[in-house]
């Protein structure tokens, strides 16, 4: 699971991130994203491959991308109650952050 945070100017940001994955033959299992102000957050689950690390590094050095967080699934948390309905949402823990081609935490 990867979270990409970048400056949104136009949908070209998404195109460039996807292009980086395509060029390195890294497949996407699912993806969603949101824009707040001019910041875009894209969450996606990537299939493991020998190029995955390089793809993450390359995305992290893409102009307009501010950081890439690599997240790991931890547990499912129950939300809501019996009256309004219950659902489970997955919690993720950040295990690494990359920016401009290097791991920063």
């Amino acid at each position: 699971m990867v979270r990409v945070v970048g400056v949104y100017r136009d949908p070209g940001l998404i195109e460039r991130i996807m292009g980086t994955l395509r060029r390195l033959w890294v497949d996407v299992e699912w993806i969603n994203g949101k824009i707040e102000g001019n910041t875009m957050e894209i969450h996606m689950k990537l299939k493991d491959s020998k190029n995955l690390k390089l793809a993450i590094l390359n995305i992290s050095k893409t102009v307009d991308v501010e950081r890439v967080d690599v997240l790991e699934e931890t547990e499912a948390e129950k939300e809501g109650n019996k009256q309004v309905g219950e659902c489970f949402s997955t919690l993720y823990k950040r295990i690494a952050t990359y920016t401009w081609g290097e791991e920063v935490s």
Partner: protein
Amino acid sequence: MTNGARLTIESLKKEGVKVIFGIPGLTNMPLYDAFLEDLQNGELRHVLMRHEQGAAHAADGYARATGLPGVCTATSGPGTTNLVTGIITAYQDSSPVIAITGQVVRPSIGKLSFQEADTPGIFAPITKYTVQVRKASQIPGWIRNGFHIATTGRPGPVVIDIPRDVLLEEVGDEIKVEPMKGYMPFRTNVTPEKIKEAALLMAKAERPVILVGAGAVWANATEEILKLAEMLISPIVSTLPGKSAIPHDHPLYAGPMGYYGRAEATKIALESDLIIAIGARLSDRTATSAEEIKSNRKIIMVNIDPTDSEKTAGVDLNLVGDARGIIKDLRESLITVSQRLERSEWISRLKELKEYYSKFYYEDERPGLRPWKVLKILRNTIPRDSIVTTGVGQHQMWAEVFWDVLEPRTFISSTGMGTMGFGLPAAMGAKIARPEKTVVDIDGDGSFLMTATNLATAVDEGIPIISVIMDNRTLGLVRQVQDLFQSRRIVGVDYGNSPDFVKLAEAFGAAGFEAASYDELERTVKTAMAQRVPSVIRVPIDRDELALPTLPPGGKLSQVIVSDPRKSG
């Protein structure tokens, strides 16, 4: 009030731009209208190329000769798509080219309009950054940021696509340029501890080799590298573009290693127990097998781009940052961690390898002009600081092995992309950047013709470059692979008698010469330099000449072929 076109020109001038290579069309025409007075008063020069690919290569040649960004422009649609090959060539070789492209008016974008191309979509994967400007007020910011992006960190091309109506849009004169969010040059990871670790590795090594790549050229690190090599008593090898960083008459330089490199350089690298790769990404052209290059040795990588070590398996220590500064730190640290180094055996081995392989290279018994000797005559005839560009093909490989670079930034070649047709327009860009220097395009007949129309520009604009065409009437490098590795099934490569290069040159208004002997070559080169007009010198080369050393396709460096395998089989 001003308009977008005027803002563009003023912004370019603020960045120090003096020359724009390009071709006008409907959508970038407002730029031309805006710089007319600048041309008239000599503040700017426009070079009207004959094809946009040539404009991008010329801007690239300008950038590589100076280290400063080269600028080109094209109109929307076919004009812009013609830039593609030139821009990706600059991208592969990390050259800061800025392309200002015209675009159809905003209401027409995305409607399959006349001469519309999806410029951001086409260029985003082959540039460091591509932006489509939506308002005239954004222009100064994007020009500033475009230059900043192109020239910092790992240099690279930037495309700024501006719709025609944005160029014509009227805006106020006072526009504040905000710093850009979402970009920063790479950070260094170098610490005193890492420098000490590297210095210890270097001091402990018995057989160190310094491998120099294009990054060393961009970092202007020649002097520091030579000092390090002398202190370390280490042979230096280079990549093909890294040739331009090292004076080849330095006794520690072994030559370029790799696919078509010098065998002694490849061999000394394979015998080393430590490679210090400076501004070299260890591409598949330099190290054809990751296993081979990483086995039995340590690798220290000094590179501006932290991700290059990820692409290269087996890097033991990655020093990210500016090569010149890092090497200076390494030298200072070496003084503190090591006694006087003694590597006379290792240097003797370098001399031994140089002597051994030289007997394969300089054979002169067969009839006709030998490529090595042609290049030797040329080298001895033109000044030491002359700039040489190349096309792509066998002649480029001969230049890799036999051309002696004597001063930094004097060898310019399309090495990552391998773009045929690069030589002539790149030479024109280099000559405009460095008018005081002799500029020679070492080319092949196939490569030269791909962009030869730009010779008309060289004549019209008075750009006195010299193209030396090693003419073997074939696509020699492809032919060689067919000949040696595809059972001599020669197909689709041999040309007929067209054109006559001397008459072709004369038709363009250039000087044309035939040099069928070494004496004629020397004489015609001297004449061309004295006449100071664009010149073409045709040098006939036998079609069966091989570019050696080489490797079999997919081969390892240890499988290097140094002599004509056809003679033994």
